[in-house]
């Protein structure tokens, strides 16, 4: 008996894989970046289907911004961003195919070997999930999150400082 939840899970998983494949099958940089975004949104959808609401919404929010930024950088650095000039996105085909097959087999094997434990029956409501996530961040994982947060803040300040110096020189 396949429930709607499982069906959605399968469909979204396939959507994620399909868009992941589209990333390399197009020559337009913006199409490529937005395909990756669509793949990531499908993964956000997977979180939502699995009732991890906060993670799903966060994934969808972050990926929208990140992939748009990636789009502009890909467009700036590629010599043929629109893909109008017969450019091929794929390189070292034999090596990549071998690598992809080996890694897929490893990951597929790992998912079968690992003992995932019992399936969660009582899923806490969204409000409770948010609270538990907050407690997790402030207890066991505090060091990791503080380090990451501090690094990002430093990066932001550094970026603003770098942007300032050009202006000062002009004055």
């Amino acid at each position, binding site marked *: 008996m396949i429930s709607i939840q499982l069906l959605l899970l399968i469909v979204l998983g396939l959507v994620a894989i399909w868009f992941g494949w589209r990333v390399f099958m197009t020559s337009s940089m*913006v199409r490529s970046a937005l395909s990756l975004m669509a793949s990531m949104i499908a993964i956000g959808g997977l979180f939502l289907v699995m009732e991890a609401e906060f993670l799903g919404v966060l994934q969808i929010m972050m990926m929208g*911004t990140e992939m748009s930024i990636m789009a502009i950088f890909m467009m700036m650095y590629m010599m043929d961003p*629109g893909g109008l000039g017969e450019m091929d996105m794929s390189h070292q085909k034999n090596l990549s195919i071998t690598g992809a097959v080996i890694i897929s087999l490893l990951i597929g094997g790992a998912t079968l070997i690992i003992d995932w434990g019992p399936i969660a029956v009582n899923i806490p*409501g969204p409000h409770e999930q*948010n609270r538990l996530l907050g407690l997790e961040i402030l207890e066991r994982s505090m060091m990791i999150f503080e380090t990451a947060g501090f690094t990002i803040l430093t990066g932001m300040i550094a970026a603003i400082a770098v942007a300032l110096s050009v202006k000062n020189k002009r004055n």
Partner: protein
Amino acid sequence: MIIGILITLFFLAGIYFVAVLERWSLSGTMQWSSPVRSLLRLFIQEEIKPRKHDSIFFEAAPVFFIAVILLTISILPFGEGLVLIDLGTGALFINAALVYVMVCLLMAGWSVNGVYGMIGGWRALAQLIAYSMTVVMVLTATVMRAESMFLPDIIESQQSLWNILYQPIGFILFYLSAMAIAFLPPFDLPTAESELAGGVWADFTGIRKLLFRLGRLALILTLSVAVVVLYMGGWLGPWLPGYVWIFLKTLLVAASFFAVGRFVPRIRQDHLLEYHWKFGIPLALFNIFLVGGLLII
């Protein structure tokens, strides 16, 4: 049921009112028939497709634009218990959905294979990334006060004092960011008429342009509802029923957006980003610190 229909009618009227105000912000006169005229004109306008346009994005961008805004509307409460989808992460979802306004503008700007459109699209990217950062930071402060990301809980937390008075810095930042996200004047850089001849929308005509224009009007109204819910007490108010209060406050906020836009000149792109990254984000962080302090006291 009846209340639902009533609210829908209210908001359709609201969109009409916003359209009239948009016209007023450009011409200075209230032309009550102008939205109908624009609608009819765009319906019969010839649909021009630019040479070598990106067909997928060209067709998808206007539809996605309006879809994203409808998603945002679906999670906002329009009265006590009158919310379509009561998300446990409602406050975060507002920003998550609005990020895709930027993606749609980017798609639209890129798809037309034209210089004005593309510059408009990249401008929209820079502007909306900058301002969605502030939005998420000031949202954090409202969530801190309510101790919940449910939007109805955020309204209930303002029972004693509205957030507009409790965290005025947050309100000002959210208000300005909302204007920037809806690219209203003076932040209308992606579609600047006098610089880019319409920017992102320059090459869209007919029904596609109509979808963009309608989507923008709905976006302005949606952001006004968000301002009301987060900072102006939502349905809280004496005598009248809650949904009437939300509607009246929303119209007031939407009108104030246009009033600001009419009398302030368009801001320069580098100033826009500079003010935001150098003053907006530090102020938003300070706001979190301040609200945290107030909550502990």
